[in-house]
């Protein structure tokens, strides 16, 4: 049942994603991509649970910690660079 429930979530969020992204103008496509990149750093949340749980074994913990490192780059780098780009988009004074 768990899998079915997760598939439901998947289906609904894909539809929401399509609706939202279609409204993003071409001007913002690059920040959209880097912003999406930052969001895909959400793997960090999954990685944390693997890196910090000692009962899973040392090896799993090390792999998890490396995943935390990588995902953090994505989150921090993604949001910061998106912000830097968006700050440049200005109206005419």
């Amino acid at each position, binding site marked *: 049942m768990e899998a079915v429930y997760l598939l439901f979530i998947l289906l609904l969020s894909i539809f929401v994603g399509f609706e939202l992204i279609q409204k993003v103008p071409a001007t913002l496509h690059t920040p959209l991509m880097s912003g999406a990149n930052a*969001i895909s750093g959400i793997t960090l949340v999954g990685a944390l649970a*693997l890196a910090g749980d000692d009962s899973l074994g040392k090896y799993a913990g090390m792999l998890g910690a490396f995943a935390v490192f990588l995902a953090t780059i994505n989150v921090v780098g993604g949001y910061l660079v998106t912000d830097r780009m968006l700050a440049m988009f200005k109206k005419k004074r």
Partner: protein
Amino acid sequence: MIETTSTSALVINLTYVLAAALFIFGLKFLGHPSTARKGNMLSAVGMLLAIVVTLFDKNIISFEWIAIAIIAGTIVGFFAARLVAMTAMPELVSLLNGIGGLASVFVAWSTLEAGTYLSGFVMLVTFLALLIGAVTFSGSLVAWAKLSERISGRAVTFKGQVTFNLLLVTTIVFCGYLFVASPEFSPSFSIVLYTLMGLALLFGIMLVLPIGGADMPVVISLLNSYSGLAACAAGFALQNNILIVAGSLVGASGIILTSIMCKAMNRSLSNVLFSGFMPVVESNMVIEGEVKPLSADDAYYVLEAAQSVVVIPGYGMAVAQAQHAMKELQVLLEENGAEVAYAIHPVAGRMPGHMNVLLAEADVSYEQLFEMEEINKRIENFDVALVIGANDVVNPAAREMKGSPIYGMPVINADLAKNVFVLKRGMASGFAGVDNPLFFKPNCRMIFGDAKETLGVMIRQFSD
């Protein structure tokens, strides 16, 4: 793995719902340049909430490695975001795609090494996370190398490539079967695991190698989508709903961008991915007329008299770094009483929105950037169309020459403006290898040379 029985687990999951809502609002605010920055901030707040609350999970007991990893990642991410030049944005985005993919690979790998019993369904999604993540990683590295010209930007093909790829896919599917069918973690299983990862990495390389430079917008969008889908698959493996929501939002975003890019080239995705293997189309069209060169000094007189100018930038503008010079010329033209508009083709440059970012960096107002359809409606009214380093996206053959390889592709109808100036280094054809009849039209003049220098000459003329 996250439980859902205790109170702390309840709090964690409720916070995830809030984070998901913030991601969605963040993307919604990205719908307009004036609210986009706020949207990005909201999305970042959502991410921070999700991360912080996860640390309260009662299964997370040791924090040393987590702290080290987060600090190291923050430093790398911070400097990457701060130091990258705006012109190197396509490279950075593709690197970030790759890192996202690799993170999913390590999450999936760690899940396997944790040694708990994993059901067939979990093994299947773990396999998908490994596969998509590894393909995203190696594919993005190749894309990055192509964009930064560490390897040739042209399509790389070799004899027997198709057969090789088919063999590769078959082996991956077979390994996938072994992988899912043997949930117990045994020595022979780790051989399957490592083989699978190696093959997936190889597959990512093979996928991007045969794709040429001008098709990069499609590849980057597609890899962007994959990095989301890999996170999504990892979410299924960990049964973590926020990973699934966020991952599928990213996946959907990448898919939409991919389809916009393909439509703008009038090609199907499979055509973009596999056209490297197809024989080059020989066009035997004869274009009549002659190419008329013009000096930048002479072009100035026309620009000075112009009431309206439309600028059509392409990848050549990025290469010549001519966006700041263009902005300078724009100011002079406007002081001279002319209206200046920019027409941006969806696939101009090396990634979606590439030109917009460069022009934004040069302080051009986003209200002056127009999409292809808007400008085509009124292109006849412009006195001058200034084409800077663009070729295929202004090729009228797409409209009028049946049989041309790019026939049917939506283009900016620069040839319909009263005068067309094409700033170009030489007479080489564009990426598509198609001759451009625009250059032979009676209202078109070619201004040869480096775009930045040409614009510089015009600016000096205006100042005198």
